[in-house]
């Protein structure tokens, strides 16, 4: 049988788990549920500590539409709060990054000030001033009653700042990651890292399609660069390893950077204790990726904006101690592949854009195949299957049958 009608097309001889229903990428209700059941519950990396190097530096971000501010106190501690004023709900800080050392038109130095009615807060989130409090609130409300909403926050795994909206989060970050970072631990935790690259993309596609791309290497066929620098016995011997909580990592091989016309070996520049020209990949549930490749660390953070819209933030990192020359080399290596004008990233983004075009809300449900089995080797799609096993637990939905239709039909028979 060649071309198929819709019913035939939906049924390859695959077990559930070897495919997902395309509606998990396009349904508005599923998207809304994911925000509540997953993104508001788990640890999310929101920025890197080098983006707020000095006391009183801040960075604003968001998780599941909740605005967040990360600040460094004068005690050097990094803390996170909802970026929301307890008075009438104004967003307190509007800039994306900066410092509170200097005053603002309606605020004193070294304070976070809501510009609306000038309530002021210190770097620990305490409210330290309410203009004319006594006159308006008498003794019914004082500044002691109204601090900022503090969020659980940890700086970990190479200096990333992780935040959760979940006050009752059961696992600390170390337990949550379940050892997925151990393969690059000494490389990223021996000495401080520093961000040198940031850019973002907003794509009409589902966030999980980006994470899927980061979780499968079969698409290396799309990248000329990866075909010529990889695709040798060592590459095909790489394995995927699953961890608790839906995380996966992929072990390394020696990339033949010299095989690429514009490439050069990267053996002179690496990370502490990290052999040259290696490439490890860590995919963290529910959509974060850490990619240590030769001389640069890349991190992708997804912010889902709708069933068919995602923002992806891309960061590149080197060592804080880098000489100017080494830093320039790291930047070149990073951006020649992963920058907005780099060889691979553009192709990866074209891939999920095309998937997004075919999986818009209301489109005919399809089966998206995750069924390559190859002893967990590099082109085995175990990474995606492992992710969706976890997704299923948080969502209470079967990704192969998210609307419970197949189960009902079987039960009726």
């Amino acid at each position, binding site marked *: 049988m060649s071309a198929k009608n819709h019913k035939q097309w939906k049924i390859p001889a695959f077990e559930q788990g070897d495919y997902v229903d395309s509606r998990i990428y396009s349904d508005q209700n599923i998207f809304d549920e994911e925000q509540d059941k997953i993104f508001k519950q788990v640890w999310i990396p929101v920025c890197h500590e080098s983006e707020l190097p000095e006391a009183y530096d801040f960075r604003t971000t968001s998780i599941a539409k909740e605005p967040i501010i990360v600040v460094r106190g004068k005690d050097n501690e990094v803390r996170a709060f909802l970026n929301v004023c307890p008075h009438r709900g104004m967003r307190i800080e509007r800039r994306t990054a900066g410092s509170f050392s200097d005053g603002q038109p309606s605020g004193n130095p070294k304070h976070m000030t809501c510009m609306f009615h000038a309530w002021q807060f210190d770097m620990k989130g305490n409210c330290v001033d309410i203009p004319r409090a006594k006159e308006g609130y008498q003794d019914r409300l004082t500044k002691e009653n109204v601090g900022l909403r503090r969020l659980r926050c940890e700086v970990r795994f190479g200096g990333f700042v992780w935040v959760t909206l979940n006050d009752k989060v059961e696992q600390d970050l170390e337990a949550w990651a379940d050892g997925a970072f151990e393969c690059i631990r000494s490389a990223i935790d021996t000495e401080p890292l520093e961000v040198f690259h940031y*850019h973002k*993309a907003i794509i009409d596609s589902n966030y999980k399609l980006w994470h899927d791309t980061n979780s499968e290497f079969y698409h290396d066929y799309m990248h*000329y660069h990866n075909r010529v620098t990889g695709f040798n016995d060592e590459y095909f011997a790489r394995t995927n390893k699953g961890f608790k909580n839906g995380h996966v990592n992929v072990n390394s091989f020696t990339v033949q950077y010299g095989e690429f016309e514009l490439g050069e070996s990267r053996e002179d520049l690496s990370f502490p204790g990290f052999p040259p020209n290696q490439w490890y990949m860590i995919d963290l549930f529910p959509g974060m990726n850490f990619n240590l490749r030769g001389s640069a660390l890349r991190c992708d953070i997804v912010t889902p904006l709708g069933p068919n819209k995602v923002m992806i933030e891309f960061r590149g990192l080197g060592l804080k101690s880098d000489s100017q020359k080494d830093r320039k080399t790291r930047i070149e290596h990073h951006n020649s592949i992963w920058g907005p004008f*780099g060889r691979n990233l553009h192709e990866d983004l074209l891939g999920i854009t095309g998937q997004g075009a075919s999986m818009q809300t209301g489109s005919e449900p399809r089966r998206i195949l995750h069924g390559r089995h190859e002893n967990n080797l590099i082109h085995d799609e175990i990474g995606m299957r492992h992710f969706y096993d976890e997704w299923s637990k948080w969502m209470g939905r079967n990704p192969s049958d998210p609307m419970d239709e197949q189960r009902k039909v079987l039960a009726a028979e």
Partner: protein
Amino acid sequence: MNAMKAAITAAVTDIVYRSCLYLDNGNWGEFLNLCDDSMIYSIKAYSVEIRRDMEYLSHNKKELGTLTEMLPKLNSDHSPLRRHASVYTVDIGEDGETATAVTSLAVYQNMHDGINSHIDSGETRLFLVGKYLDKFKISGESALLIEREVRLDTRRLDKGTHHLI
């Protein structure tokens, strides 16, 4: 001297505009002919998020040649980029051997495929805005590019591109 200055200014302006046409049309070889062997090309932007200057791409003339020859092997968007440029200033060095030019730049994308070619093709979108900060080597009344920094204002580049800006 004023006639000389005017001639150099005209030569520099001509190179900037020609470079736009050649890049628009994908005439990479012609573009490289406007460049001295010492040419350095870069794309830079300042990130307000990480409060750092960033270098998105950096190549010498030889690498630019390799990069542009490689384009047919890479998967890319089919939508061509088109420049609108205005040369704001041309300044000639005191020794008369170098010049710099600042050019305001808008790059549009004429959609051939986009998200779904059936719907998007034919549309023109703003791809980015920025400036060309160019340096030239002058000999007599002719000029060659020795440095081009594409200084981007736009930092949300979404799908990005394999092409030179």
